[in-house]
């Protein structure tokens, strides 16, 4: 499926980063550095709990997401755009609400300083 354009996502759109909106969990992985454009996955809409549930349902035997999917970072498109990052729709077969968090200047801009600003825009929710 084709990646969309930033203007397709409203400023007030809510998005979730499963695992939390921390600097460590917002870094580009080696796999994501080579994407075009480089970016990390977020889930649009709904609640933090629904985003975590989506991950658990999609990967029912994943040890990783059954252990850590209880913390979810939530922000809006407008908030992350304030930090210089951007968000584009990137629907997948499993996740029709999938989007990619990118930076106009590419992978190098996922640096510690920028990620620290970005992380401040997330509110983390942890399930009991």
């Amino acid at each position, binding site marked *: 499926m084709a990646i969309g354009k930033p203007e*397709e996502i409203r400023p007030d759109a809510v998005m979730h980063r499963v695992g939390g909106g921390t600097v460590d969990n917002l870094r580009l*992985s080696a*796999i*994501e550095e080579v994407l075009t454009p480089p970016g990390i996955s977020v889930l649009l809409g709904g609640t933090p709990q629904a985003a975590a549930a*989506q*991950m658990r349902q999609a990967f*029912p*035997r994943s*040890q990783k997401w059954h252990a850590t999917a209880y913390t979810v970072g939530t922000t809006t498109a407008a908030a992350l755009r304030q930090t210089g990052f951007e968000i584009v729709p990137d629907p997948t077969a499993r996740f029709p*609400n999938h989007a990619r968090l990118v930076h106009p200047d590419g992978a190098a801009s996922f640096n510690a300083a920028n990620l620290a600003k970005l992380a401040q825009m997330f509110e983390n929710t942890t399930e009991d």
Partner: protein
Amino acid sequence: MELAQHTFCLIDAEQRWIGEVEIDHITHNLIFGAFVPGPDFPAVAEIFQKFEAAVNVQALSVVDELDAEIATLGLRLCLPDKTQCVNVYDIQIWHDGTITCRPGDSSAMLGNGLQKFSANGQPMEMAHLKSH
């Protein structure tokens, strides 16, 4: 073909014996089982290793690409004598020896099966996208 409580061979479209699947239970059309690699598993192991790595770093667009690659294998669960087989899709084989898959054709995942993966089983809210 009754799937529950059976052991099946996992065969691909090239008739390669990928492994053996001992079905543990089936919930909401999702098969849970134990996977024992067969003689031809090394030929496809890398795809599933990449899949697990992409899942672990939440690279969901890469997961999507690997899903498509796995679908092209044309995997089926067959009785040991291969007299009966059932197509499966959404096959996930993990390093700990577990497997999940769904009976049916992969088009269910790429077409009208999308909503099966929506949160809480509900149609996905897409109001965050601007209308054109």
